[in-house]
């Protein structure tokens, strides 16, 4: 009998780990696929901030694949994902999370992948009723249909709650050995994990998409509101995760490094942005993101920069501003007093 091949959407969480294991137990050849949108990147912030650099770092999707003994293909979908985020057919969740469109997109990409690699079907760790947007029972068929996967999409953890799929009808997998999980209760997953001997898995239902974060979403919206278009690049996504963002004027904002790790990371952007720091006192590196930035703007930014350095109580501090082309401006400013930095400037 031909061994059937499935690709599993491995996020790094418990559900996809278990769904993959269920398929492996049935003798299916499984390889993992993980889509990098630019937003599912908890590890990035950990890598940036010095205080987090001592923490154990691991990519949970890679960890899952290793536990399972399957290959993992990590696919960069940053460019294609822009359309999902900018024009979600089904709208956003509580913040800028386009969960239903995101899931549809990823399953569609997985469908393209199985066609290109001669695989038979797709599996996910979805559980009926577990999440309010993308895992509602009534939406699961919609996602299967709109992604184009239709009945090539099997959800092993809740398959018994859903209509039979092609792999079940064709006997590629045994439906009786699939599961009937539903709802937000995680105990069945934890019990199954224990049965399989998985102990060190990522926090259940942890989620790792920055777009579900209110503060991050506000920064994205602010960025869009102050640019001619809503387009973005990976660097934009990254910088929204770093530092304090302060917008004293419509035409520019400051990104103020909060500690050494962030300052170091931001140094890599000094050829793209005006960068400012105080030379007379230790302090943060600051990037200016904006357009038509005047000398007066740079001076204002210098005063704010001084506010966050060790010269905050000095009468004046020396400031150096480096333009992207390398030109350097030096000047003295009085640090801005705390009460002059308006709360609404903080993005």
């Amino acid at each position, binding site marked *: 009998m031909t061994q059937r091949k499935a690709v599993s959407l491995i996020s790094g969480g418990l559900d996809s780990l278990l769904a993959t294991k269920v398929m492996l137990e049935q003798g299916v050849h499984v390889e993992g696929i993980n889509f990098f949108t630019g937003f599912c990147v908890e590890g*990035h912030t*950990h*890598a940036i901030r010095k205080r987090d650099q001592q923490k154990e770092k691991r*990519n949970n999707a*890679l960890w899952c694949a*290793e536990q399972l003994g399957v*290959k993992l293909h990590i696919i960069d979908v940053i460019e294609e994902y822009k359309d999902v985020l900018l024009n979600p057919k089904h709208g956003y969740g509580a913040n800028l999370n386009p969960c239903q469109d995101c899931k549809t997109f990823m399953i569609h990409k997985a469908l393209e992948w199985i066609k290109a690699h001669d695989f038979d079907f797709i599996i996910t760790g979805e559980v009926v009723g577990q999440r309010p947007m993308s895992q509602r029972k009534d939406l699961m068929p919609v996602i299967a249909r709109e992604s184009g996967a239709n009945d090539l999409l099997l959800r092993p953890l809740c398959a018994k709650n859903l209509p039979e799929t092609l792999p079940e009808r064709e006997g590629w997998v045994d439906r009786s050995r699939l599961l009937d999980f539903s709802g937000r209760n995680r105990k069945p997953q934890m019990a199954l994990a224990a049965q399989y001997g998985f102990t060190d898995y990522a926090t259940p239902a942890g989620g790792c998409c920055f777009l579900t974060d209110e503060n991050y979403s506000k920064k994205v919206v602010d960025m869009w509101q102050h640019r001619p278009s809503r387009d973005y690049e990976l660097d934009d996504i990254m910088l929204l995760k770093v530092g304090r963002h302060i917008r004293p004027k419509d035409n520019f904002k400051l990104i103020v490094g909060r500690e050494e790790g962030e300052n170091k990371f931001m140094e890599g952007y000094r050829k793209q942005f005006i960068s400012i720091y105080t030379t007379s006192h230790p302090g943060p590196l600051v990037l200016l993101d904006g357009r038509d930035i005047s000398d007066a703007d740079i001076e204002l930014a210098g005063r704010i920069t001084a506010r966050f350095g060790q010269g905050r109580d000095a009468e004046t501090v020396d400031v150096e501003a480096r333009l992207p082309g390398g030109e350097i401006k030096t000047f003295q400013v009085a640090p801005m007093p705390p009460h002059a930095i308006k709360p609404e400037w903080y993005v």
Partner: protein
Amino acid sequence: MSQYELDARRILCPMPVIRTQNRVVELQPGDTLIVTCTDPGALNDIPAWCRINGHTVIKTERRDDDVIITLEVGAA
């Protein structure tokens, strides 16, 4: 057998892994790839990716702010 280099500095995981993965696809079994990164997470992630995909990490080292991972491409 040839030796190649990949500059994956100033990008954060998983991008160094993705760049490594995409470069390895173009190489032959037995070729060596030296990947230079600045994200220390690459010291865990690239070896993990190698283990699950059948490639061998020959050496990892830190040099100033860089982490350097030398790997040998395995059979497809």
